């Protein structure tokens, strides 16, 4: 089979002109124009550039909605199997246009799309998660290297071949971690990395340290005696039988339960389903994880105003940070709406 390839380029690479022609409106030409020749050649008879869509960078940037719609219609009409856009190197507006049309075509036509940019091109940040962006140098001098990388990635996508790690395939990663089998064991790689580090040679860490969001703490409670305090826990305390099926680890949900009538947590009404600690004692007395008993005493003594009638709970083992952030934001929002003054967060 011969793959139907469509190529998107700007007015400059189409030979129409430079900045003075940047307002060039979308135009469709049959076959390849400019760098498309090399794309078709590298497909070795397995693919044909059936059309090239050309648009001025200024036009795409200033009339984005219109340009996008017009280009999409042209591309759609060609019934392509794949779209290539660029390479855009470090040209900001061209990068934006390539990323935007690639992302749009991928989403609307559900076909693979590949573009190419210099890592600092502003198009990268906007579109790296929505298309494959091959890494290029900062100028057209890198054309000879960029096209084979784009075609390599495109061919794999077309054939459904296994895509390797971004750094080996030559594209800008999409922020996703995936496990691969290396040639050497972790222990061997660790010793080799240590030897390189000791010699002052360069080495590649396999995970760059993430930067955590620092959340400023809320202002202190003004008067505890009138404050409403909520209980929130990642310790896996749920009503017996886990009615909402919160997962024992890697939680993807949290539960909220009414404790307004409850003085105390007992093995008859509550249990721990947490998959990351020895739950033996928590199941004898769930109060050791969610301290309702002592909070009721403080409430009775008037030390605190009252306990919020709803408590929130999930399991905090193997739970993705992204989910934890989402739970925190949602729980925080609900507590705020309910007029809660403070919360006690218990972890395990």
């Amino acid at each position, binding site marked *: 089979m011969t793959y139907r390839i469509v190529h998107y380029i700007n007015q400059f690479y189409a030979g129409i002109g430079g900045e003075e022609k940047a307002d060039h409106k979308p135009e469709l030409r049959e076959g390849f124009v400019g760098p498309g020749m090399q794309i078709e050649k590298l497909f070795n008879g397995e693919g044909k550039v059936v059309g090239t869509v050309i648009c001025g960078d200024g036009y795409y940037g200033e009339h984005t909605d219109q340009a996008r719609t017009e280009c999409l219609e042209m591309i759609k009409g060609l019934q392509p199997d794949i779209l290539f856009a660029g390479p855009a190197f470090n040209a900001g507006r061209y990068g934006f246009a390539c990323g935007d049309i690639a992302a749009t075509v991928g989403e609307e036509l559900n076909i693979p799309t590949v573009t190419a940019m210099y890592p600092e091109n502003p198009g990268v940040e906007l579109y790296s998660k929505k298309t494959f962006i091959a890494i290029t140098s900062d100028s057209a001098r890198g054309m000879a290297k960029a096209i084979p990388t784009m075609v390599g990635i495109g061919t794999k996508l077309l054939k459904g071949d296994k895509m390797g790690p971004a750094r080996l395939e030559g594209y800008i990663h999409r922020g996703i971690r995936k496990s691969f089998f290396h040639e050497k*064991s972790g222990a061997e790689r660790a010793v080799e990395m240590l030897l390189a580090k000791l010699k002052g040679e360069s080495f590649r860490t396999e995970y760059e340290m993430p930067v955590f969001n620092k959340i400023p703490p809320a202002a202190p409670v003004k008067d505890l005696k009138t404050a409403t305090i909520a209980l929130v826990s990642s310790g896996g305390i749920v009503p017996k039988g886990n009615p909402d099926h919160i997962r024992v680890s890697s939680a993807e949900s949290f539960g909220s339960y009414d404790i307004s009538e409850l003085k105390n947590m007992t093995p008859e009404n509550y249990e721990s389903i947490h998959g990351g600690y*020895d739950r033996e004692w928590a199941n004898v007395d769930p109060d050791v994880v969610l301290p309702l008993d002592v909070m009721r005493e403080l409430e009775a003594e008037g030390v605190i105003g009252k306990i919020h009638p709803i408590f929130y709970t999930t399991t905090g083992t193997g739970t993705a940070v992204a989910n934890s952030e989402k739970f925190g934001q949602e729980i925080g929002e609900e507590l705020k709406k309910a007029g809660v003054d403070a919360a006690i967060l218990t972890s395990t």
Partner: protein
Amino acid sequence: MRLELHKIHITGLAFADKTYTSGGTLFINKDEAEALIAEDKRFAKVKLDLACPGESTRIIPVKDVIEPRVKIGKNFYFPGFFAPMEKAGEGGTLVLDGAAVVTCGPIVAFQEGFIDMSGPGAPYTPFSQTRNVVLYVEPADNLEKHLYEAALREAGLKLAVYLAKCCAENEWKADEVQVFEKGNSFEETQKYPDLPKIVYVCMNITQGLLHDTYLYANDLKPALPTLLHPNEVLDGAMVSGNCVSACDKNTTWHHLHNPIVQALYARHGKEINFMGMIPTQESTVMDGKLRAAAMNLSIAQQLGADGAIISEEGYGNPDTDLCLNARFFENAGIKSVLVSDESSGTDGASQSLADATPELDAFISTGNVNEMIEVPAMEKVIGCKEAISLLSGGAEESLRSDGSMFVELQSVIASTAEIGFNKLGCEWI
């Protein structure tokens, strides 16, 4: 100190009327072996089964894996468990290389795992490649969890020692002798004055009765970091007693084979001067974490260490121990490389660690514990296939009616072993 591992390569398993080896096959007297384990009244049922590479067999839930071994001429192993309390790491050890005892039974806690002997799940665990003598037990009625854990831990060790002991008592011949020899730190430093001095810090989950590791049969939780000669590690000083998430628990088999110890040993006297292993704790409280990290550093400094490899066990709060170790070592001028797995979510899009520090600039990844894998039904299941719903990495919907499963990698035993045994590691895509 000189340790000789006399290895008989085991390539087959069979039940027979006596326990011995011949022609690479480990023959097992099933009745005798079962009766030995059934002596322990904490078990209501004991059953032995066999599982070999390539078979359509799933073993679930698995708690620990142990290599059958005994000291030559003494016929015991694991000091403090099934050997008198004495120093490990010297003399000859008979190893049934390629054979493994796998302990299995109704789950102790949530964090046991499974082994597939073939299919897409097999490449993730080293135990799809070993000839497994599976010890399936059921605990006596109302046996308290911690007693059950101890019973199952001891039963696995006992069976492993029994198998090797019977082989030692019959005719045997080693297919291979592996020698580990290294003098004390002063001698080695005199011999290799110009080689960088390296320590290995082996972090162990030590967080309570079901999350413990044993050193010379001593619970490491209330203990302090110490220093071992690498031979001690490779000769039964360390035993797993934990139910931490299946993917990244260091089984007893892993301690015996500690790949970081072996990789450093292989370069000793050539590129490095390997000073030894510091087994250390992962406490549940901050002071415990700080204490362990401070004492790890102190031991390394007193040895004059130039570099360190530090491996984690588990994920979540132990990430803080990992970061503290990295920070303390780097700030003291000891170059360090850290080995850990990642919890980046089922979609791989979440950040991978529960803690971070800029000093941790040399990270070896052993895979994403949350990654989803699909495994088909197996013709034979040893244990209880429904257990997946209770395991970390499994859920109620994991087991489908056709027997296939869609699960997180963390439910496969030792799939992301942070001791660096496997070749798996995360990359950006």
